């Protein structure tokens, strides 16, 4: 078996006196789909944000594609080029059109020409089913459309890994499905991904593995079948009883 594409080893993370991650170990293999769940404040966001260097850790080691994230800005930049991220609040650039949102990083970071970037933007907008919105501004779109643009923006960097941090939590219920469909399609195409979500349907359908976090520790790590049907830990059972 090949080396894991993301390797998290004994990671501890503090915000001041508050410990957000407490000795986390996690490996993600190429093509694997991991769903991270757990109660609010358990450190899910922190964990995925550590995976592309948005947060730094106090102790432990995180490697992505064999690159140690503690290796300074060039290492971090290199990792970020191969890791796409989708945020709960979309974080689209409101002053840029959809197309400009998609083209900015490929042109500035990957050195694509404007024309190449536009072709690529068109391709991924089609992939998320909104090619007709290219010239609009983000605030002219619905929440679901915005989140799909955000996914397309990440895909335009042609990443090897996608990180999702509660991609549907800020959406009105009627828009959740269009976003989940896009994510499911991506999963079906074999994209390696780590997804923080409370959508247990999504977890069941696409996850290879479910990681349950509580108080900064991985409490349970299991296949969906095991996780939903025979959870080992009490905390997982409690969590599932509340959420299902």
């Amino acid at each position: 078996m090949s080396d894991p594409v993301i390797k998290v080893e004994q990671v501890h993370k503090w915000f001041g006196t508050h410990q957000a991650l407490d000795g986390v170990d996690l490996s993600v293999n190429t093509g694997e789909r991991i769903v991270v769940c757990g109660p609010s404040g358990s450190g899910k966001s922190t964990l995925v944000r550590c995976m592309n260097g948005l947060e730094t850790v106090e102790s432990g080691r995180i490697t992505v594609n064999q690159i140690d994230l503690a290796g300074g800005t060039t290492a971090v930049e290199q990792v970020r080029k191969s890791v796409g991220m989708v945020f709960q609040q979309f974080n689209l650039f409101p002053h840029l059109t959809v197309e400009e949102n998609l083209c900015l990083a490929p042109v500035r970071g990957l050195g694509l020409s404007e024309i190449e970037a536009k072709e690529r933007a068109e391709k991924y907008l089609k992939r998320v089913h909104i090619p007709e919105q290219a010239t609009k501004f983000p605030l002219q779109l619905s929440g679901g459309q915005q989140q799909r643009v955000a996914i397309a923006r990440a895909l335009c960097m042609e990443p090897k890994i996608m990180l999702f941090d509660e991609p549907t939590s800020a959406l009105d219920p009627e828009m959740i499905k269009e976003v989940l469909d896009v994510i499911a399609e991506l999963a079906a195409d074999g994209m390696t991904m780590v997804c923080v979500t409370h959508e247990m349907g999504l977890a069941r359908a696409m996850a290879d593995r479910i990681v349950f976090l509580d108080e900064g520790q991985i409490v349970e790590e299991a296949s969906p079948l095991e996780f939903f049907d025979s959870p080992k830990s009490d905390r997982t059972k409690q969590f599932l009883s509340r959420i299902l």
Partner: protein
Amino acid sequence: MVIVVVLVSWVIGNTFDNLSTRGIASGFSFLQSTAGFGISTSLIEFSEASSIGRAFWVGLLNTLLVSAISVALATILGFAFGVARFSGNWLLARLAAVYVETLRNIPLLLQIFFWYFAVLRSLPSPRQSFDLMGLFFLNNRGFYVPALEIFDGGGWLLSVLIALLITAFWQRQQKLISRSCSGMAVLLLVLVFANAGISVPVLRSFNFIGGAVLSPELVALVIALSTYTAAFIAEIVRAGIQSVPRGQIEAANALSLSNKDRMRFVVIPQALRVIVPLLTNQYLNLTKNSSLAAAIAFPDLVSVFAGTVLNITGQAIEIIGITMAVYLTISLAIAMAMNAFNRTTAMRGLSP
């Protein structure tokens, strides 16, 4: 509305009645009379024999000149210092903070004097000028450079030339327009030179004659106004940058944008929404502050018109009235331009 008109006409009528009962001259005919005084720096032809009205234009153009240059420099400096406060380099960030605190807290007039006398004292007398290739001279009377002297007709050609160059610049994307503009510009340039000669500064008994001169007054005023205003602009830029939500920066980071690109394409454009309206105030202040020119002998509108002309004619009400109207007009023009900029650029993507 009617009340206002009646009130205003009553005030004006009453004023002129009062003035004539006191034997004070009134009216605007003084604008046509001969000035009789000289002005050191002028963008347009001016001599003692010119009219007072022309002196007004000289002063106004000088005010606009100094304000425009200072606004441009203050904006560049202000953005540089504002951005530097977020620099990862501790020393640079500290320096920017110290700059802002120091410059903001020293009265502007003192700074103007400081720069003026610092400039004057650091430069040699005309006979010991710094000499560059016998063409450029720097001394405590100013910086003397060779100048293009345009004969009749040349002036028009020159303005067409400038207009063409500006079009060429703005239309850079449309290569065809840009090329044809540049082609015509070259042609015109030849024509301009055919109608012009070069005047080189030469040393006479006291000073250099000929060429064009950048006076120490202008330099000191521009330095003082732009560095002072830059301190305020730096604070505004800082506030603007801080107003950009964290998520925007994280998104840029996640996309692996470099620090520079992140600032330039993500943070600054959004910070402009906060910056531009506040910047308008600073531009207005700068323009008003340029009237401190009188203190260091730069012939701006207040110095020439509300100073020398007022003293000669003594018609305080007319002159102060005109001067206030001019500053009001400049202020409104700046405010309108900034509003337009705000609508088209800073608020991009925000209005549906």
